């Protein structure tokens, strides 16, 4: 093309001696560039074109600078300079745009080629799980920690004194009927497997002065023939609060707070008078049935309520065993079946599944 060859010559050689001729010359060159680039856009070797036009030594624009601008006559030199800058900006701009377009095209075709089947699973790392009972314990602990309870633990192999007598359950008390007990062979002290976490009420009060505010998680044992709701072992969490100013109203507020935190803000609480040797007044704590929401169904035997756990004000007889003054102190205690709470909340129909440790169960609660 004549135009590009023209850059090998000087302007004087081509007879360009006026700004008009300079402009026209540059217009031709610009058209040539546009043709050149447009023509080759599909198969364009972008790098080669860039070298041809913008190459530092032999590029067309470099030649213009050497051959046209430097030797240009004084009167047309500014016009040449301006035109050269304009052309350079155009050429550079075009190359940037072309490079971007080419990258996009390349990415698109690569994406189309590499598109994976997203319905296939990835590589999943085997991560374990915490047991549902553990998760429930953590939830219960969080709730009671938030209102100032401290967590303590105690032995599972207990003495009859802590498990029964100190809790106002003497040897021939009929309340022992509900607490069939496993005894340890050959123990002089008559050791047994604790039937509830309540012995820690006594052990704690023996050691500490009020105010006492504790919860006691742990395993307990009953000599029951196993069925869908009974096992040799289950989990409890005991609670005890004793101080100079704890009343039934505080007891009520605490269990209501617990029920709302554990079962949700809509859950209502009902206290039903009951009997436990170590509390008085005693209560069964009921919550609105989680299945029917209180309207009555088979699960709640059409009462709208589900029994959650037993509780009450500490029986003054218990204070006698720990040297607390029953005339000055008062408090409340509760004992929750954690398995039962977990079963209720997560719809587990059978108690045994909680200790069978079938991984198909364990994985259900990640």
């Amino acid at each position, binding site marked *: 093309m004549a135009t590009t060859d023209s850059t090998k010559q000087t302007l004087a050689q081509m007879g360009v001696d006026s700004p008009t001729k300079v402009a026209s010359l540059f217009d031709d060159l610009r058209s040539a560039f546009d043709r050149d680039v447009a023509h080759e856009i599909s198969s364009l070797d972008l790098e080669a074109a860039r070298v041809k036009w913008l190459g530092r030594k032999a590029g067309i624009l470099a030649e213009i600078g050497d051959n046209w601008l430097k030797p240009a006559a004084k009167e047309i030199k500014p016009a040449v300079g301006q035109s050269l800058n304009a052309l350079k900006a155009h050429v550079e701009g075009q190359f940037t745009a072309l490079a971007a377009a080419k990258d996009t095209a390349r990415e698109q075709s690569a994406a189309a080629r590499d598109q994976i089947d997203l319905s296939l699973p990835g590589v999943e790392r085997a991560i374990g799980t915490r047991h549902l009972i553990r998760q429930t314990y953590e939830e219960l602990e969080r709730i009671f920690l938030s209102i100032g309870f401290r967590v303590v633990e105690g032995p599972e192999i207990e003495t009859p004194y802590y498990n029964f007598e100190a809790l106002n359950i003497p040897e021939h008390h009929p309340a022992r009927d509900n607490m069939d007990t496993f005894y340890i062979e050959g123990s002089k002290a008559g050791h047994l497997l604790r039937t509830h976490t309540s012995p820690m009420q006594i052990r704690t009060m023996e050691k500490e002065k009020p105010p006492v505010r504790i919860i006691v998680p742990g395993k307990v044992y009953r000599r029951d023939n196993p069925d869908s709701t009974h096992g040799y072992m289950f989990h409890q969490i005991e609670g005890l609060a004793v101080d100079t100013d*704890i*009343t039934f109203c505080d007891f009520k507020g605490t269990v209501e707070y617990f029920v709302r935190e554990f079962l949700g803000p809509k859950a209502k609480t009902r206290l039903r008078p009951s*009997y436990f040797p170590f509390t008085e007044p005693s209560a069964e704590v009921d919550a609105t049935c989680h299945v029917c929401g209180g309207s009555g169904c088979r699960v709640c035997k059409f009462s709208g309520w589900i029994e959650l756990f037993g509780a009450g004000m500490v029986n003054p007889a218990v204070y006698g065993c720990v040297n607390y003054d029953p005339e000055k102190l008062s408090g409340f205690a509760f004992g929750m079946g954690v398995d039962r709470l977990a079963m209720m909340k997560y719809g587990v129909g059978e108690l045994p599944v909680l200790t069978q440790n079938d991984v198909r169960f364990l994985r259900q609660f990640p």
Partner: protein
Amino acid sequence: MKIVYNWLKEFVDATAPPAELRSRLSLAGVAVDSVEESAAGPVLDAEITANRPDCLGHYGMAREVAAIYRLPVKALQPKLKEAAIKASDATRVEIEAPELCGRYTARIMRGVKIQPSPDWLRQRLEAIGQNSINNVVDVTNYVMFELGQPMHAFDLDKLSERRIVVRRARAGEKIRTLDGVERALTKDMCVIADASRALAIAGVMGGSESEIGFASRNVLLESAWFDPITVRRTSKALGLRTEASYRFERGADPEMAELATRRAAELIQQLGGGEILSGVVDVYPGRAPAPSIELSRKELLRVMGADVPDRDIEEILAALGFHPSRTDAHRGTPGSLLAVWQCTQPSWRRDASRGIDLIEEVARHYGYDKFPPRLPPAKQPAHRLPHAEAQDRLRERVVALGYQEIVAIPLVDARRDEIFRAEGVAPAVIGNPLAEDASVMRSTGIVSMLGALEWNLNHGQRNLRLFEIGKTYELRDGEPVETAVLTLGATGLAREKTIHEAEREFTFADLKGDLDGIGKLAGRFGWQSGGPAWLAGGLASRISAGNSGALGVAGQLARRVADQLKLRQEIFVAELRLEPLLAGIEAARATEKFTLIPRFPAVERDFSLVLTDGVKFAQVADTIRALAIPELRSVEPADLFRGGKMPVGKFSLMIRVTFQSGETTLTDARIAECSSQIVAALESKLGATLRAS
């Protein structure tokens, strides 16, 4: 206790339908599980707590209903047509053991026609789950369910000398009870005897010899009060629980005894005719004045935190039979904070003897719902268990390593436990187990772990990684000791085959890696060869932690043991004592400090060593570390090779040594200097040679 609605209404004019009664009773402390229809009308199934034997009869339930609705209870006034002959002329009652029998009343009926009971009586008994036998026996049962007072009817003609002796059973004495079983008695037991022999086990069950049959004509009706503890002991010792023993062991009402014989005589006369001899034979050595009980408003407020109006207090206590009367100086002031009521304990409420008992009575009938809830202010900080944070970190780590947490029942099979029990450990054996496979408290968590693995393998789950944080149990000098442990168990594939990866079996190296991952929390675990016999010899290991000493064991279950337990897969287990582990985690945490990340590049150098069999990697690493090269960062095994071109007795170990300086980029010359130091040390100390590459 089943309550027939229409029967109840004979004693109180409640108009509430059964469904309402159910919920009102439940909210007053008598939980009613259900209401069902029967031939005798609606029946409420009530759960009576152990402290309320007075509610084990319709009359007692009527008192509760009366208190709920503030209605009067109808008095019981049986009407008897008595003959001129005195009962006391026809029989004699002697209580030889007044400590076992506080009262014995007897009434005599003659010429009674024993026959089947009428429909109304049969239906009521059947509605509460009792079989009808004959009119006299049915009446004694009926009166028990009406008044809560157990009764017994003797065939008077079968009594030697027609008299009653209440005494302790004699050594070796036997009796055939109504259920046809011959029972051996002991002198702790109380019997009803005639002049020569035991006729009935007091408060538990009658004997067949003096039983009422269709041929009987003359009847002695017994209504007595027996010592609760004696009845309970006797009933337990004989394994004989009856409706009578259930009531006596909870405490019957001694004042009800006489009334019950009257009621029974009235009914028998209605149903079977005959004559009632006049009067009752009543021996009452246990008579005691009714205790008085004080209730003060101050105490009520202190316990309940909110007040109950005077009128409610008085109405409730009156309805329940406590006869409250204000005795304080402020009687004219209603609602006085200084109000005090003196009450009398009714004979049927031996459970209520203190002010707190009256507070409970008032509160439950006033309504627990009327007391406002309030959260007590906390005066102390809340605390988790002492090592809770460390245990969280441990559990989080084990879960992240892919182990599922299990929770097992620590009661296990004694024979299985024995396999894993360390020598000299005395197990905590259950004296009264319910089943062979739950007869001892486990000596190790391994037993439970293998049980859980077995369960899963038997249910088609063969790739398992489980852990438990639990306890082990033993006796030391007769005292129980409970030790917290972390137990791991793994079997099957470490990685299952997927479209991305090939499968890989779980190996000892996986277990070791997992444990070392746990060990990083506690500084670092040390490993020593050897371990209990139930681990496979070559892989049995003992684990220790720097500052905590011996922690536990790890390895593969010995084939012999696995076979014995019918576990076909290779099983890997570990058990670590929790307390020192948690202490180690806490100690490590306390010393963890930031170290500057080096700015200069690290340089790795591989050394291919030929070593004599038996030389351990640790010796190689220690030899290099002993050089105390300041730039030494790590010594890692890179490749291990035996056999092939290796001469017998030798093996090849490639180690990768990393150098890095905190101050400068290392020069080739410095690396070469370190390398030759290392090679020289390995050659001289371990006889290693560099393998020609």
